[in-house]
């Protein structure tokens, strides 16, 4: 059995939880999902739609906000109580913090930031990138089960989840938690940038690069994005120049995204940018330079002037609507 530890905050499920469930379903083993917090009814109901055995809700007032001590304590109990063969987590910031501790607490191995699971000989291997994506390694866990693995956000498609014929059971996990043993006190969440944009959740992205030439042309990109119902993003030079805020930057020093549609306008496709968006399902590139590396990853490419192509796209979309 694979136990997936889903992530939620204030009753909102982290989208990457679905990706971990997809990974679990791909192993062919039965799947159970555990989620911790307070007032979990709606999150649990949402998760129960998937083809899984059971949703375990782990509720306790002390789990209202995430703390590493609290989560390690309760999930150590959940894992011990449910005896899974594998434990899967989405590779979120929260997972990065508590999963290593949880694995160490139980004396089990943890493979982080995986992008695929595959059968290799007669055992499961976890595929993870190394050297910033230059290599991928097949890593087989050793030691006693369960083995822990976390999955890179965007490695699986949330909508690839197999849904169940009927909703899965929802069961409250019976837990004891000594709130006094939690050493961390939670302060209000810290938000560094005002209006931080989480592009990882966007289904469509229109991204712009140096080909846009001047700040006053950004509006063209925004118009196209609005017509497509897409988020606006950019490569580094645009954000460096302050034409768009830094939280819209895609790439190795910005966000890593995997939307259904990624439209790259005037982006040459430096490797620093490609690592942030090559997981998109469909990549459309518009660039004047036919030799730009962006065309090596694009599904559709237009060699042309974005100042001609983009207005044409906008009017075509307007005609459709």
């Amino acid at each position, binding site marked *: 059995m694979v136990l997936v530890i889903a992530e939620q905050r204030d009753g909102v499920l982290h989208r990457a939880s679905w990706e971990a469930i997809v990974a679990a379903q791909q192993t062919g083993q039965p799947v159970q999902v555990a989620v911790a917090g307070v007032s979990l009814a709606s999150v649990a109901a949402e998760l129960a739609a998937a083809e899984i055995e059971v949703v375990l809700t782990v509720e306790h007032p002390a789990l209202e906000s995430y703390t590493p001590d609290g989560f390690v304590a309760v999930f150590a109990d959940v894992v011990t109580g449910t005896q899974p063969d594998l434990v899967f987590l989405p590779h979120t910031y929260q997972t990065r913090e508590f999963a290593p501790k949880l694995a160490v607490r139980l004396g089990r191995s943890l493979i982080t930031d995986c992008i695929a699971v595959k059968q290799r000989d007669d055992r499961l291997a976890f595929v993870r990138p190394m*050297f910033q994506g230059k290599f991928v390694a097949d890593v087989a866990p050793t030691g006693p089960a369960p083995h822990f693995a976390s999955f890179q956000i965007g490695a699986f498609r949330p909508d690839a989840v197999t849904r169940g014929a009927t909703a899965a059971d929802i069961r409250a996990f019976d837990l004891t938690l000594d709130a006094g043993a939690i050493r961390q006190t939670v302060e209000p969440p810290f938000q*560094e940038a005002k209006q931080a944009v989480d592009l990882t959740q966007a289904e469509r992205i229109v991204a712009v690069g140096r080909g846009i030439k001047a700040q006053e042309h950004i509006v063209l990109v925004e118009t196209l994005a609005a017509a497509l119902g897409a988020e606006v993003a950019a490569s*580094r030079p645009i954000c460096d*120049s302050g034409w768009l805020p*830094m939280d819209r930057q895609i790439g190795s*020093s910005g966000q890593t995204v995997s939307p259904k549609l990624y439209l790259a306008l005037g982006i040459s496709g430096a490797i620093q940018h490609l690592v942030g968006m090559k997981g998109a399902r469909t990549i459309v590139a518009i660039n004047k330079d036919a030799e730009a590396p962006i065309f090596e990853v694009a599904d559709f490419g237009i060699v042309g002037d974005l100042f001609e192509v983009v207005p044409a796209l906008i009017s075509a979309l307007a005609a459709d609507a």
Partner: protein
Amino acid sequence: MERDTLEVDVLIVGGGPAGLSAALRLAALQRRDGGEPLAVAVLEKSRQSGSHMLSGAVLDPSALDELLPDWKTRGAPVETLVRDERIYYLTERSQLRSPYTPPGLRNHGNYIISLNRFVRWLSEQAEADGADIFTGFAGTEVLYEGDRVVGVRTGDRGIDKHGERKGTFEPGVDIKAAVTIFADGVRGNLTKTLIRKLGLDGPTPQTYAIGIKELWEIPPDRVPPGRVVHTMGYPLRNEEFGGGFIYALPKGRLALGFVVGLDYRDPLFDPHMAFQRFKQHPLVSAMLAGGQMTRYGAKALPEGGWHAIPRCHVDGALIIGDAAGFMNSMRLKGIHLAMKSGICAADTAFDAVRAGDVSVSKLATFQRLVNGGSLRRELYPVRNVHQAFGAGLFAGGACFVLAPLTGGWWPRGLLSNEAGHERMTRLDRYYRTERPDPDDASNAVKVDRTVTFDKLTNVHYSGTRHDEDQPVHLLVADTDVCRTRCREEYGNPCVRFCPAHVYEMVDDGTGDGRRLQINASNCVHCKTCDIMDPYQIIDWVPPEGGGGPEYEGM
């Protein structure tokens, strides 16, 4: 502002081979003499020990033997013994193998190492010996009382790109020490200010080179592990000093790189392009075919030799390693000298702290140890080699070969006494009649993204990361000079000598004008810009601690 203060007996600024050797030697002296233990702290700007370490590297183990005689049983990460050496003179399409290996380049008994792994191991040894190593902290300011050095201030964290405090702001810490040992590497940002303030310059200006390196994975049976190849000639012209190196590591790993003296004359010359041309040479491309580049990095190295070493002892402080210029450019080696200078500094500082006298006269012991030991014995006889190369390849070659016979003597009048950047020639004087395009390197090649790469792609493989929301750490005193005078006089050579695409002249929006754009987060901390800028208006200061390259395996 409230700052924390930390007091130690010995503060070592820089956790490279020099600084860590000093820390290890201090621990050994402590074991030998007993008594109240000295508090020793090491500051290192990289997030992990070794992350900013880059060298060829062939290690002469002499200093390691002295420092940790049991290094083999402690598991020092040496990759392989040097088994085979070749020197080639390259022309564009062919090569001539030298039948003679000058004594300086004989590497019998030396090891090929990854300096990154070696330094990480050294830091583990030093920590096990009780040194506190503060990684992720850069020293940004020397603290003085009068002219006496009393410690170092570390950089503030959590400042945004406009200089405002972010929610994560933490002020830097003042670390006070009886003796501060500066081991901040080639063109160290603190040593630079120390030399300037106290007037410590050596008899000749320090000269430098830039080394650019890649790691490759190639079919394992292609080049036998332990082979060391050095090249001279192509793609450099007689007026440029430098050459290539190829070191074969076990399991099909190949370290290769190219070194160019930062005293070239042609303002349109691009060292990174020279490296690309080197890789395209049949001798090299045959080794690389079908392989993959896995790492990239660049770093300046001090090449001025003995006469360029500053006075290294002042009230309360010592300077060691590459920061001082303990590097043998004839043997292409400095790691063992850096380590040896760390040993000498530790011996000096230990006695001084125990005696309660850290004055300049007490710390002059360091100079006596340097003069009386292997450092002078190795560096003095080759003191003129690089300067002689400044007089041309053949003069340099003659001096290089004859140095062992003449004891290094060379007619004084033939030696250049200029700093390297002063040799860069204005476009109109270098090109005279042509009007070259200042946006094109004179040695440009079209990259194929298989064997040759553009700088931006290369930077990706340096693992370089900086918090994007911080002030630019390349301080250009007057960017007007860039778009006006420098564009006209030198064609913005920063765009070419920077190996990491930090400097860019972009369209300024007016139509035909350009402005300087600094992509600071690409910076691999090589210091070339600080050294080679013809106007000397670029000041490299440390970015927020922890930022920089990740030279895993380099």
